[in-house]
């Protein structure tokens, strides 16, 4: 085994161990399960109240919320994974060992994906149990989408690692992460708001350009934003649209590779010293 691989394995093992013995993973699982349960409860209540006897894709929204939460949690974790130990001086100590940016970033990505898998390993059986309790089927196609979903979460982790590597301090990293999230959400909300402007409005023509810019940004985000990829991927899986599922997965893997290369460049440039 090459030195780099051995080092990456050791760091990944340590990070996974830290996550398993920490509390934040379990808090995220609890929030995801609670959110999913509430959505499912709403769906079943709506069925009861409306008198309808069918409900479309009852588990799509709950699992989308769960995977999105896991993705955001891991992106946040990745955002601090380099910046915080660098602030504290422990990253410098880690690099006294034969560690380099490639092995560190590889290890952190590996660890985050393992934690994601762990998250799913705990969450999916809970949803399966809920499915039995409410007598609504958990579609196997959705489970296929969940199996592919690490490819959608990976770019979020890689973006977090890039922010962590490029930021001056852990506070700066969290600030940049917040800006990235606000921008991604802002484009969606902004576009929806502008779509709601009636053609008769006196501002319609003025806002048309802005709406087109936001539309283009939204279209770009469709391929860049991990949350958009999760949503599109799960939707494609439910429709058994394997081509779109594959394209989304490839976009996720490609995006992760690009962000990881950028993170490596940033870590070399910024260094490991406080």
């Amino acid at each position: 085994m090459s030195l780099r691989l051995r080092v990456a394995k050791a760091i990944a093992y340590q990070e996974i161990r830290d996550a398993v013995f920490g509390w934040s993973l379990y808090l995220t699982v609890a929030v995801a399960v609670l959110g999913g349960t509430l959505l499912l409860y709403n769906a079943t209540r709506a069925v009861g109240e409306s008198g309808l006897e069918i409900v479309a894709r009852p588990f799509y929204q709950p699992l989308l919320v769960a995977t999105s939460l896991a993705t955001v949690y891991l992106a946040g974790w990745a955002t601090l994974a380099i910046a915080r130990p660098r602030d504290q001086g422990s990253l410098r100590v880690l690099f006294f060992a034969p560690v380099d940016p490639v092995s560190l970033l590889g290890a952190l990505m590996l660890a985050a994906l393992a934690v994601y898998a762990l998250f799913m390993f705990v969450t999916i059986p809970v949803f399966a149990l809920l499915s039995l309790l409410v007598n609504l089927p958990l579609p196997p196609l959705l489970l296929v989408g969940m199996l592919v979903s690490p490819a959608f979460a990976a770019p979020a982790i890689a973006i977090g690692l890039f922010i962590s590597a490029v930021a001056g301090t852990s506070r700066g990293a969290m600030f940049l992460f917040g800006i990235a999230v606000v921008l991604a959400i802002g484009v969606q909300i902004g576009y929806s708001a502008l779509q709601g402007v009636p053609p008769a409005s006196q501002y319609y023509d003025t806002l048309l350009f802005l709406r087109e810019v936001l539309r283009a940004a939204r279209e770009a985000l469709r391929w860049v934003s991990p949350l958009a990829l999760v949503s599109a991927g799960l939707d494609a899986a439910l429709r058994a649209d394997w081509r779109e599922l594959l394209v989304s997965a490839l976009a996720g893997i490609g995006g992760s590779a690009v962000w990881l290369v950028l993170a490596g460049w940033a870590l070399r440039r910024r260094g490991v010293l406080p």
Partner: protein
Amino acid sequence: MVIATENLTMRYGERLVVDGLNLSVRPAEIYGFLGPNGAGKTTTIHILLNLLRPTSGGVSLFGEPVTPGSFAFRRLIGVAAEEPAELSRLTGWELVRYFARLCAVGAPERRMEGLFRTLELWDVRHAAARDYSRGMRQKLSLIRALVHEPKLLILDEPVSGLDPHGIRQVRETIDAYRNDGGTVFISSHILSEIERSADRVGILHDGHLLIEDTLDGLRRRIGKGRRFVVELETLPPSLEARLRAMPYVLELSVSESGRRLEMLLDDRDDVRPAISAIVTESGGVILGMQSEEMSLEEAFVTITNQNVTRLAGG
């Protein structure tokens, strides 16, 4: 050479932190790297470890040049620096085992046990490392640096924060490591510690290596170093003037009783017989003579002051 640097220079903007440094550390020696705070010692260590890229110049470790991006050589090096307080949730034992794993050490437990016992951390090995006192963290850092049996041990202020008992343990551990053929590079401003153990010394001041020599060589180069005390029955009238006239007597003071002479001598040659002869010729009776070599601290202050004066004089 275990460490060799060639015109190593590091600038942060306009500030010159390391200035054309030419270091050489030989196998199986203890090299004391001295300098006041801010002299550039830690920056030099970071460059040696390839954690910082120098502005110009080069570093060779174990005869191989350190190139940008190279890191595998760190397997041969153990580094003990002040351990950050904010360690992960690991215990001391787990932390050292983690580093052993990073350095690809197969079964480190036996060696770890020896080191933990030697440095008296055995009883607290399962306590969280972040709960260790500063001195304990310092010792843990040394265990971490030695666990993979490195060829070169780099110590950055190894005894700061340690009590006398701890200092002794660390000193013995370093001596044992050197006796096994290891090379030690100690950066410190605790001069007494360096004086006790170093074979050779390099003094860094404002990023510039002022001198690199053995301790004896250092004293010889400075050219004044021996403090000499003579106890007399009485002070003969002409003795003080005769001694002051001697070129090797750099400073002379006489005690109030007149029976004790304190001199600072140029110790390039042994002038004790000459002084003894002058006292006797002057009619004095020597009750006792005592000589002290210049301490490293005095040498350090002299050398750095000379440098400051030289710089001030342009």
